[in-house]
């Protein structure tokens, strides 16, 4: 056998570095060869990075996707707030049957100690999630906030001058304002294992995007009864890199002092995000809006 020489090492190392880069870039090219869906998102759905800690030394800008789920009707909605993003709410549609369809073994009863232990030990799985932009789920969230405001206003009317009800109405107004103007309109509305069948159900490629994300089942006590629910614990890609050509749009926005009537910073922008064949996103267009 020929002896391993320094030249062999040099060639092997260079080939390894080049081949790894080539595989990664070919994957990117394949993903971007055809958008699977394209969503037009705004500052409501995408957050600019914070400018503290290590981020201060990071010259790159990545926008984080703000997704929500419509909370179960029986949850104490306004403790968490309907505008709550990310982890926190168990959606109605993510029931036992759906979990079974997603590949979780949910055959054990959750009301026995063994069953409880079994579900407590269950960890999250990566599945396909359907993101809906400004669709029925968003309208339901808005209607709920409006209904809550009306209920609080009726209570205030029945108890005029009472500080507690004045405060509650003020909070409900703020929640309605947030829901109407600020909160993300991007909702996770379904999950599955097969992208084609999900796409057949959600055909509009400008309203529905299919992405990868994680689901975590959990047994919780609802009305003193153990019940199996599930949470969406995150998207596999939760941040979207801003290419240098759009930097001049976002760099000033990071320093913007523009706030809404509640003092919350709201620098406005619009971004077209495409999701490719491998369901990986990228920015195709961006503009700062007035």
């Amino acid at each position, binding site marked *: 056998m020929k002896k391993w020489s320094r030249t062999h090492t040099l060639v092997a190392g260079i080939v390894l570095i080049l081949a790894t880069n080539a595989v990664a870039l070919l994957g990117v090219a394949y993903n971007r060869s055809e958008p699977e869906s394209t969503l037009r998102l705004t500052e409501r759905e995408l957050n600019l990075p914070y400018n503290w800690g290590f981020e201060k030394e990071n010259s790159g800008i990545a926008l984080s996707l703000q997704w929500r789920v419509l909370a179960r009707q029986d949850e104490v909605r306004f403790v968490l707030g309907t505008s709550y993003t990310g982890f926190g709410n168990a959606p109605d549609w993510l029931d036992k049957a759906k979990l079974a369809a997603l590949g979780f073994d949910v055959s054990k009863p959750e009301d026995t100690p063994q069953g409880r232990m*079994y579900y407590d030990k269950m960890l999250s799985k990566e599945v396909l999630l359907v993101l809906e932009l400004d669709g029925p789920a968003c309208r339901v969230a808005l209607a709920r906030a409006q209904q809550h405001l009306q209920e609080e206003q009726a209570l205030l009317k029945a108890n005029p001058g009472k500080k507690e009800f004045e405060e509650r109405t003020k909070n409900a107004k703020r929640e309605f304002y947030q829901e109407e103007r600020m909160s993300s309109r991007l909702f996770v509305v379904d999950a599955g294992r097969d992208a084609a069948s999900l796409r057949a159900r959600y055909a509009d490629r400008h309203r529905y995007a299919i992405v990868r994300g994680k689901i975590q089942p959990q047994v919780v006590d609802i009305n003193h009864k153990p019940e199996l629910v599930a949470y969406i614990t995150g998207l596999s890609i939760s941040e979207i890199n801003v290419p240098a050509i759009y930097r001049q749009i976002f760099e000033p926005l990071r320093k913007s002092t523009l706030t809404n009537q509640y003092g919350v910073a709201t620098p406005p922008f619009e971004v077209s995000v495409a999701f490719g064949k491998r369901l990986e996103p990228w920015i195709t267009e961006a503009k700062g809006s007035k």
Partner: protein
Amino acid sequence: MRAPSRTDAQQRADDIRIFQRELDRLERENVVSFSETQKRALMDHHERLLAQYTQDYDIDRDVQAKQLSLGMRIASFLGALALAASVFFLFYQFWGLLSTPWQVASLLLSAAATFVATFWIQGRDATGYFTKLGAMVTFACFVLNISMLGQIFNITPSDKALIPWAALAFLFAYTCDLRLLLAAGILCLIAFVSARTGTWGGLYWLDFGRRPENFFPAAVLMFLFPQPVNHARFAGFAAVYRVFGLITLFLPALVLANWGQASYLMVDSDVVEGMYQVFGFVGSALAIWLGARRHWPEVVNTGVIFFVIFLYTKFYDWWWEIMPKYLFFLVLGLTAILFIVVLRRLRTTNYKLLEGGAA
């Protein structure tokens, strides 16, 4: 005959120094006596060997040089880590200002250029300290290269990235005789095997650390790897594999011995904790026995460290709350003394076995 490695050359130089000292003693005690010609021949031979080793490998010829070398080894290790961090933050500081093609080009070129530079340094650096620095920086550049491609193009995180990282680290380790890079490669491989074990168990790959049992197959693999694969040419490599194998076995066991809920096992947490406590004690005791039997000092030491950790953790659980602190620490001290006595007995038994074997 194959050319010795730097470690082999250093070992021979140390042996020569010890031999010369003992020979002086033996001559003073009139046990042996060499003629001047014999002594001269011996000294000339040793001088030639040492001069050759110094020229080829820049070895330490005396104790003072060895102490300075230890300082250089520590400095090169810390320097390698600091330079790797510096490269990372340098890119972090400026990458956002570059266009995408320039970002990709700079990442690729930094990995390739540092690789070639390390290769060039290796040809001129007999000590290996600068090669280690270069190799570590190259490894950091390559890790940065692939992870930043993921960030730039929003690629789904994958455990497959660990494979090329491990491959580059092993390439450096085996061709430049670098144990630091061997450790980096082993860590990548442990992470990959554990992530795959978790995935086969139905987990999302990044959650593999939440079930410590996922590390066990990787631990067994690392511990056994030097058995079929001959590492005679690579001094200390087999020991590094075995130490990492044991750490990967006992550290998750220690976690499970105190946090049974993290286990895959569908039994009560207290039972799981009890099982892993027994596993920890028996396993580390077996490691000490095996290490002593096979003359693997690193296995004995790792076994002793984990046995003591398992024991002291248990003592803490049992007695920290109920005992006065002076008594608690007295028990710890007495246990240490007992441990020394047991190890001395073991050593004596070993000597007897050796004597028996010799007879």
